[in-house]
C-alpha cells in the first residue's frame, strides 16, 4: 500500500542509522520493502563506483590523441559535394532510409505511414506501401533486395516482399516479425533475409527469426528508449552497437544477449551509431551537437567532432568507404563533413529546408543519401 511504501522510502534513505519509530509499528511486509530499497540503493552505489573505476582503467592506456597520431597524414583539400538527385514523393517528413545492395535502389519511410522503394539513379518510384500506422521511424532493405522491413508507432517490425506485379497489393503479403511494447526506432537485417535486429522505445533491442516471427534473443541494459543500432562488419559477425536516450552506447554479443562494452560520454540522447569500416570502432551522433568516435580495442572514446558554431543536434552519421570522412546530418538542416583522423570539419553542405533525419552512405561509397523533414531525399556525390 502507498502509505507503507512512503514509510519504506523514507527509511530507505536513512540506512545505517537507528530509526526510532513512533506508532504505528511497521508490519512485516513493510520491513521487506525497507530491505529491498536499501539493497537497491546499495546496488546503485556499487554500480556507480564500478563505473568510475572503469573510467580510471580506460584512461590508463590512453597515451596519445588521435589528431596527434594523424599529424603526419596529408590534409584534405577543398571538398565539393552537390545534390545529384532529389527524390520527391513523400507527403510528409522523411524519417528513415536504407540502401539496397545493388548500390542504386533505396527504401524510405515517412511520418504519414508511407514506405517507398525508389531507383534513386532514375528517381523512379518502384514500390509504395501505406503502413497502418504513422511515424514509420525505421526501414531496412533486405540483403537479397527482395524485401523491405519497416515499423514505427505500431510497435512492430513487418517485412514486405517486393513484387514487380503492378496489380499486387504489397500490403497483402505483409509479414509481422517483431513485437515490442513501444515504438520501433530502428531495424536492420543481419547477413541474410532470415533475421532482423530491432531497437525500440521500450528500452530493448531484439533479434528475430523472420520465417517464424520468433524472438531469438533480447538485449536489456539501456535505461531508456533505444534509438539506433548498427551491425558490426567483423570477421566473426556476432556483435552490434546500440545508442539510446540514456546517453549510452552499448556493444552487444548477439549470441548471449550480454552487453560487452558500454560507453557513456555523450551529454544527451544518442540518435545514431555507425561502425567504422574495419569494425574496430564506431561513431555516434547526439542531441548534444557532437559526433564521437569510440575505439573498441582501446575501450574508450577517442575523438569528439564538434564546433562552437554547430548548435543543433546530430540525427544520423555514416562513414565514407575508407573511414576517413564522417558525414553527419543535423537538426539545423545541414550536413557537416568531418576528417575522422584530424578531427576537423572539412565541409558544410546546405540544401535541405528542414531537419536532416537520416543519412546513409551507399554500399559502394559512391554517394550518400539524406532524408529530411522537408519531405525529400537527396543523393550527394
Amino acid at each position, binding site marked *: 500500500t502507498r502509505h507503507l511504501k512512503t514509510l519504506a522510502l523514507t527509511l530507505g534513505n536513512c540506512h545505517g542509522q537507528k530509526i526510532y519509530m513512533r506508532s504505528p509499528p511497521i508490519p512485516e511486509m513493510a520491513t521487506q520493502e525497507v530491505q529491498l530499497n536499501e539493497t537497491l540503493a546499495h546496488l546503485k552505489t556499487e554500480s556507480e563506483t564500478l563505473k568510475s573505476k*572503469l573510467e580510471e582503467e580506460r584512461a590508463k592506456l590512453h597515451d596519445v590523441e588521435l589528431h596527434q597520431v594523424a599529424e603526419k597524414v596529408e590534409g584534405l583539400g577543398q571538398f565539393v559535394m552537390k545534390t545529384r538527385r532529389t527524390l520527391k514523393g513523400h507527403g510528409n517528413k522523411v524519417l528513415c532510409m536504407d540502401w*539496397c545492395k545493388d548500390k542504386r535502389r533505396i527504401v524510405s519511410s515517412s511520418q504519414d505511414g508511407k514506405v517507398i522503394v525508389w531507383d534513386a*539513379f532514375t528517381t523512379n518510384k518502384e514500390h509504395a506501401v501505406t503502413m497502418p500506422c504513422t511515424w514509420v521511424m525505421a526501414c531496412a532493405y533486405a540483403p537479397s533486395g527482395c524485401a523491405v522491413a519497416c515499423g514505427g508507432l505500431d510497435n512492430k517490425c513487418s517485412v514486405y*516482399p517486393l513484387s514487380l506485379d503492378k496489380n499486387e497489393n504489397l500490403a497483402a503479403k505483409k509479414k509481422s516479425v517483431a513485437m515490442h511494447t513501444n515504438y520501433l526506432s530502428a531495424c536492420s537485417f543481419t547477413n541474410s533475409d532470415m533475421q532482423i535486429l530491432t531497437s525500440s522505445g521500450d528500452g530493448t533491442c531484439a533479434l528475430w*527469426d523472420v520465417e517464424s516471427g520468433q524472438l531469438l534473443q533480447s538485449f536489456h541494459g539501456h*535505461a531508456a528508449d533505444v534509438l539506433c543500432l548498427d551491425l558490426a562488419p567483423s570477421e566473426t559477425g556476432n556483435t552490434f552497437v546500440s545508442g539510446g536516450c540514456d546517453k549510452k552506447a552499448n556493444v552487444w554479443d548477439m549470441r548471449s544477449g550480454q552487453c*560487452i562494452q558500454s560507453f557513456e560520454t555523450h551529454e544527451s540522447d544518442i540518435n545514431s551509431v555507425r561502425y567504422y569500416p574495419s569494425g*574496430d570502432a564506431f561513431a555516434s551522433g547526439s542531441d548534444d551537437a557532437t559526433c564521437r568516435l569510440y575505439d573498441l580495442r582501446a575501450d574508450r572514446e577517442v575523438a569528439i567532432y564538434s564546433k562552437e558554431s554547430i548548435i543543433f543536434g546530430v540525427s544520423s552519421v555514416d562513414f565514407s568507404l575508407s573511414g576517413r570522412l564522417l558525414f553527419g546530418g543535423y537538426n539545423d538542416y545541414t550536413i557537416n563533413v568531418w576528417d575522422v583522423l584530424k578531427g576537423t570539419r572539412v565541409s558544410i553542405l546546405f540544401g535541405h529546408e528542414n531537419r536532416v533525419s537520416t543519412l546513409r552512405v551507399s554500399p559502394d561509397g*559512391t554517394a550518400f543519401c539524406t532524408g529530411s523533414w522537408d519531405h525529400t531525399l537527396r543523393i550527394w556525390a
Partner: protein
Amino acid sequence: MTINTLAKGGWYREQMTCFRKMEKVIVAMQDPDMGMKMRNQRLLITVIPHAMTGRDVIDWLIQKYNICEEEALHVGGMLVRYGYIYPLKEPRSLVLRADETPYRFQTPYFWTSTRWPASELDYAIYLAKKNIRKQGELMEYEKERYSLLHKRINHTWDFVVMQAREQLRASKQRRKADRIVLECQEQAYWLINRPPPGAHNVLDMGLEKPNNFSLRVTLNSDYYKREIESCRRALGRNRVKSSICLEGFVKFSEQYQNHDPIMQGCLPSNPWISDDTAHWTMNSEIVPVPTRLRVERWSFSFMELLNDPIGRREFMTYLEKEFSAENLCFWQACEDIRHGESSKIIQKVEDVYKNFLAPGAARWVNIDSKTMDKTLEGIKHPHRFVMDDAQLHIYFLMKKDSYPRYLKSDLYKNMLAKAIVPQETKKSVFPFMRRQRHSSPSPAQAVTQVTEEDGRAMGAGKAGTNSAAGSHV
C-alpha cells in the same frame, strides 16, 4: 533544471539545449566589448534605437566562429528563425539578409524558452488586442484562430477582452518608438509560436520521446545487477594502448583511400555525377574480368576476399588445387546455418555432420579434438550457433595458412595482371547534354520467376545485378 523541465518530454529537453546555446550566442553578440556595434534605425518617420543590419550580424559571426559567409548566414538565419533576432522592415519574413536590412534583438521576455509552451490564453489576448487595434481587420488565418479560441476558452473570454483593453491602454501611454518596438517584439514572438499556415514551424517537435523520469525501463535491482555484472566484465577485459589502436585508423584509411569514391573519385566515372553506369557494370557481382582495384582489395584482408563472390570463387579454385577446398565448403555451410531459416537448422546441421565431421566423411575437415568434441556434443541439441567454434577454427586456419599463400600464388598474380583499369571518362564537352538515365532490373524481379523451393536469397540477388548494362525497362 527545474522540476518543470524534467516533467516535460524529451523534445523539450532537446530544444531547451539548443535554446540555451543560441542564447549564449545572443548574449555574446551584445557584449559591450566584443559584441556588435549598434545604431539607430529609421523606420519611416520613427527612429528605433539599438538596431543592427544583417551585414553586421554576419560579419560578427564570421569573425567570432571563423566560418565562411554562407555558414554565418545560416547560423544567423537560425537565430532569426527562432526569434532571437527579428527584422524591422518586413516583420513577417523571418529571414536574415546579408545587407543593410535592419534587425533588432528580441527581449528575453519574449524568448520562446522563457515561457514555453506559449499559452492559449496569451495568444487569445494578443489576437484580441490586434482585433481591437485593427478594428476587426485581422488576417484570414488569425480570424479563424480567433473564433476557434473564442469557442474553446469561452468561459474566460471576459478576462481576455479585459486584459487586451488594459494592455492597449497601457501601451498608448508609451512613447511611439517604444510602442512600435513592443508591437514588433510581440508580433515576432507569435510568428514563431503560432506560425501562419504553410509557414515553416521551427518549433515542430516531432515524436515525443520520454523524459528521464517516467521510464519505460524500471531501474530495479535486476537492472543494477546487470550493470554491475557488465562493469565487472569490462574491468577485466584486455585493453590496447591508444597509440597502437589509433595508428590502425591511419593505416586503414591510407590503404582504402584509393578505393573511396568520395575521396578519390572512381573510374571510369561516378555514376551519380556523370549519369553513366559503366562503373557499376564493370563492378557487378559477377563479371568476366574484375577491375584492378577490386582484385587489389582481396589482399587487404581475408574478409575482403571472402565477401567478394569472384574472390571467393578464385580462392575455392586455389584450395581445390591444394586439396583443401573442404575447408571453405565447410565454412560456407556453417554460414548458411547461422544466417538461414530456423526451420532448416536441424537438417543443415545433420548434413554438415555427415559431409564434414563424421569419421570417414567425404569432405572431412581437420579440427582440433577439443573443438570437435564440443561440437559433437552440441550437435545432439542442434541450434543456430552450434557450429560456431568449429567454423571459427577453420576460418582462422584458412586465414593464417591458405590465404597468405593464395596471395603469393600465380593464380592471384595472374588475376591482378589481367584485371581491368578503366579509362577515366572526361566530362562531356557539352555539359548541358545529360545522358539518359537507364533503369536496371530490380533485384525483386527474380522472386516472381523462381519457385518458393529454390528461391535462395543469394541467387536471386545475383540475377538482379547481372544485366545492368544499359538495359531499358
